[in-house]
């Protein structure tokens, strides 16, 4: 099966190291969350994989063949990002048709359903669309192309709550019909937690977590209790985040903890992905 392997990628902008020795892989038929704070390097990594930029060093392969400047490899990959690469004067339907001619196929059945349910006017010019409908146009292209690896950079920008929910529904539907790899960079973690299977967490150009959502969330817990009691046990744990408020402290730790072995009054709580993210990237 096809997978993308990223091996020791570096990317510098002049003296600035934007990505430092990045190694990971994207397996077939999985939904990845690519998470990180603004400027962490998420978009750069996606741009490198899709040849919008080129790495300073390192290699990326798909099926053992290089991804960089290789049309055959790129035919498997599609990146949908904030930047528009088509003329503002083009109509939406013309964009869809040109995507079809470029990639050889387009799922018009799905596109028609999405156009209808999102209420997109395909005779509008791209330049005249709101931010939300601009995102919707790009989502339709991404979901309807015949590629195995779809990278979505902030796909739900400007979408209202109803449209975001509709996108999640279509994503689950198309994923079930034709399992393929989605890599989604987003700041809307809480809403997408249930959709991700695997998380890659980038901080300052480095991958600090790379694992299944369930495993990551099982690796850590939040201890909560009286600040003095928490302070007394703090050194026994691998703490990655601490927050105190009016005499109560929360300690995020990368340990398995048995509540029975803690002093009375300290509770052990499971973290959700958003809390885990905030703790890990603060």
């Amino acid at each position, binding site marked *: 099966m096809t997978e993308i392997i990223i091996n020791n990628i570096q990317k510098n902008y002049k003296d600035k190291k934007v990505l430092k020795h990045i190694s990971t892989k994207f397996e077939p038929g*999985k*939904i990845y969350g690519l998470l990180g704070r603004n400027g962490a390097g998420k978009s750069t990594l996606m741009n490198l994989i899709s040849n919008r930029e080129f790495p300073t060093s390192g290699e990326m392969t798909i099926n053992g063949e290089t991804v960089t400047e290789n049309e055959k490899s790129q035919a498997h990959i599609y990146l949908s990002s904030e930047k528009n690469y088509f003329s503002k004067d083009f109509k939406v339907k013309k964009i869809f048709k040109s995507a079809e001619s470029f990639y050889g196929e387009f799922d018009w059945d799905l596109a028609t359903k999405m156009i209808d349910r999102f209420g997109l006017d395909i005779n509008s010019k791209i330049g005249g669309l709101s931010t939300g409908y601009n995102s919707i146009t790009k989502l339709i292209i991404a979901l309807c192309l015949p590629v195995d690896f779809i990278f979505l950079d902030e796909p739900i920008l400007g979408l209202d709550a109803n449209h975001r*929910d509709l996108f*999640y*529904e279509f*994503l*689950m*539907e198309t*994923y*079930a019909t034709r399992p393929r790899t989605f890599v989604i960079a987003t700041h809307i973690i809480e809403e997408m937690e*249930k*959709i*991700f*299977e695997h998380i890659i967490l980038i901080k300052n150009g480095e991958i600090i977590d790379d694992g299944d959502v*369930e495993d990551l*969330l*099982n690796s850590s817990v939040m201890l909560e209790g009286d600040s003095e009691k928490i302070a007394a046990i703090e050194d026994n744990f691998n703490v990655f985040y601490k927050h105190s408020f009016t005499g109560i402290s929360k300690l995020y730790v990368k340990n398995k903890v048995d509540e029975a072995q803690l002093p009375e009054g300290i509770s052990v*709580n*499971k973290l*959700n992905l958003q809390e885990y993210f905030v703790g890990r990237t603060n």
Partner: protein
Amino acid sequence: MYFKFDERTPLYLQIADQIESAILKGIYKKGQQIPSTTEISKEYRINPATVLKGMNILVEKNLIEKKRGLGMFVTQNSQDEILEDRQATFYQDYVLKTVEVAKELNLSLEELQELIERGYQND
């Protein structure tokens, strides 16, 4: 079926638990088909791998069974087994917690018993 999720329990366990509840309440009766992984995934916007993991717990417990090419079906003794299982864990899951809260509120055993009787009659 109605799903309500909390954030403190792994999602796949919640899925298994909620399907169990639906079988217990008789929403899915013995021999009946339950919704597919895909249907649940789409309806609740949950990764199908997670839904499948939850379903597999129920398959291992023999509460549902897979019929090739058709889907998942409720087994013959499923409802009774879930009932027995939940009765067995009722003390651990609910009674201890209730007593703990009652003590925090300075409720005596007699007062707690009275409240339980009232709740039972009310229903």
